[in-house]
């Protein structure tokens, strides 16, 4: 297990380095002098020359790349062009909001998905099963930004006062208000995850119910309900962990959009706003942070999968499965 952990950890580090490298070279694709990007459009030629030197733009590309990675390792993300604050503090200030929304969305939608997946698998090809299946296709297909706009319309215009249609209050200042503001964004964020996990669990439940050990339990006279819940579910849940990993990608795109539509001050909105304000140090910092979060979550999901799945766990314990 330790070997597996170390392997996965190194792999995650390499992927983060690849993402950071991609970001470094994409900045070179930006139109104009990077010094101008840092200083804003109104900067004087002298200031740009000075900044170019300060940023090391007069050095070789390789040397610049080296110092970019060096700063990254030291945790130095630079300062905002607009406000002059450190990018780190801006990102960290926004992070709890995004993390709260994402965790609530994953937890609630996964829990509900397990119930729905079980219900669908319990009566295969029944009306209930068909309804749940159609529901998941529709839930995956509805664009999240459109659903968010409909919610704004519904609760901002047609049903004023029922739920706050936009804005945010922190949990520490007003816990109940915080949760009220979280309801709509969490629904929009969680819906695709709900659909994907429901479908995966349904299929894996149907497959598990075909296994001999379940048939054996049935032949011993155990009730269907008990067979599903105590026998099949623990095994059927395992494949869904990998799907939750995939859904993280969707969730990240979701937070950017949800924060934008509902005016929530999270990292996703920081990222999009900083592009619009041409505040590139902040854009780079926020992007690196989101990329980092994505890679960390995938690492955790991988480890969780290996931990939950005894077959993989034992293989690693015996030192097998080389090269994975």
């Amino acid at each position, binding site marked *: 297990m330790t070997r597996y952990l170390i392997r996965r950890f190194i*792999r995650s580090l*390499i*992927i983060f380095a*690849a*993402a950071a490298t*991609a*970001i470094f070279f*994409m*900045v070179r*694709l*930006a*139109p104009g002098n990077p010094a101008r990007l840092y200083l804003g459009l109104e900067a004087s030629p002298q200031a740009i020359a000075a900044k170019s030197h300060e940023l090391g733009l007069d050095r070789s590309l390789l040397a610049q790349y080296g110092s970019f990675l060096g700063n990254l390792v030291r945790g130095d993300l630079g300062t905002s062009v607009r406000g002059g604050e450190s990018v780190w503090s801006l990102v960290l200030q926004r992070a709890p909001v995004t993390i709260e929304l994402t965790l609530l969305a994953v937890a609630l939608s996964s829990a509900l998905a397990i119930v729905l997946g079980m219900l669908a698998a319990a009566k295969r090809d029944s009306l209930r099963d068909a309804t749940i299946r*159609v529901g998941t*296709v*529709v839930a*995956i*297909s*509805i*664009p*999240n*930004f*459109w659903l968010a*706009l*409909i919610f*704004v*319309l519904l609760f*901002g*215009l047609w049903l004023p006062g029922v739920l706050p249609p936009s804005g945010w209050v922190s949990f520490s200042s007003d816990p109940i208000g915080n949760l009220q503001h979280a309801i709509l964004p969490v629904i929009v964020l969680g819906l695709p995850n709900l659909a994907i996990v429901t*479908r*995966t669990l*349904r*299929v894996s439940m*149907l497959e598990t119910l075909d296994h001999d050990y379940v048939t054996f339990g049935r032949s011993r006279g155990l009730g269907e309900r008990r067979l599903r819940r105590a026998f099949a579910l623990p095994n059927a849940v395992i494949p869904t962990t990998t799907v939750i990993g995939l859904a993280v*990608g969707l969730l*990240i*795109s979701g937070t*950017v*959009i949800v924060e*934008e*539509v509902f005016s929530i001050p999270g990292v996703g909105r920081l*990222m*999009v706003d900083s*592009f*619009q304000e041409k505040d*590139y140090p902040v*854009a*780079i910092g926020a*992007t690196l942070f*989101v*990329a980092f979060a*994505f*890679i960390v979550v*995938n690492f955790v999901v991988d480890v969780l999968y290996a931990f939950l799945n005894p077959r993989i766990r034992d293989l690693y314990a015996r030192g097998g499965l080389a090269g994975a």
Partner: protein
Amino acid sequence: MPEVSSTLPTGTATQVRADRRPGRVRRVGRRAVAIVNHNRLTRIGFLLTALFVLIAVVGPMILGDGTKQDAGILLSPSGAHPFGTDDLGRDLLTRSVAGSRVSLFVALGSVGLGLLVALPIGLVAGYFGGTWIDELLMGFVDVILALPLFVLGLFLLGITGTGGSQVGPVFVSATLKVVVVIAVGAMPFFARVARAATLNERQEDYVNSLRVLGVPRWKIIFGEVLPNVLPPVMVQAFLWMAIAIFAEAALSFLGLGIQPPEATLGNILSDASSYMLTGAWWYSVLPGAFLSLIIVGLNLVGDGLSDALDPDLRT
């Protein structure tokens, strides 16, 4: 179909062909009809998708490109303007139809580009499965798959600005940038499916027969294996057309994709978001419902295809 027999010495090759070919077209045709009729949902999906393609291709020829500002501002839906008009007095039905053409272009472009890169990778990796060629190609694919592509795509579009970009000697338009970003995201999925299917095909007798007959490897891979690998790849392709249409709309909604005045379903909704609380509900509701129906249709088709090809899974 490339003429395999032309490079082969005798009638044996025709024998191999004859075993596999008779009635191929008719068989594929019958299969296609069976898939369309797979169940009621798949039929609805095909209907929606056919309508979408028809509207996207023919619609703008009749209605125009939706940039004309020739009506009243924010008119609610009526006979003259079934979707109402926007804040600049443009007909929203016309704009939505013009936007659906962009959606179709982005879907075909990004999925096509993704397939163009992924199929050779997946086919070659699968054909040489287990060798260093396979390891190298799939290692590359896996790294791309593990990258946070949405974030990187967002960053690329954000940092290079909303217009076109000059990359070395090549000018890349804003639309093309979006297409490339989505194609990069789709590529690893296509490559993996193509590889898995090729690994199966490799075991088949016809591949061995052709190999024994001395048919060049590239001809076996691209002439004979490729057509048999296509069905599972097409399932992925349909699902990714839905994802591509969503992704373009989302990027344009965030102001990072295709820019106004060119209408796309994403930037119409982006414009609409400023008028949410003025009572102009049609501005966001109708173009968004149109977009949702397009995506539902493609997802139902993808679902039906994967169902018909793999009845055991029924996801």
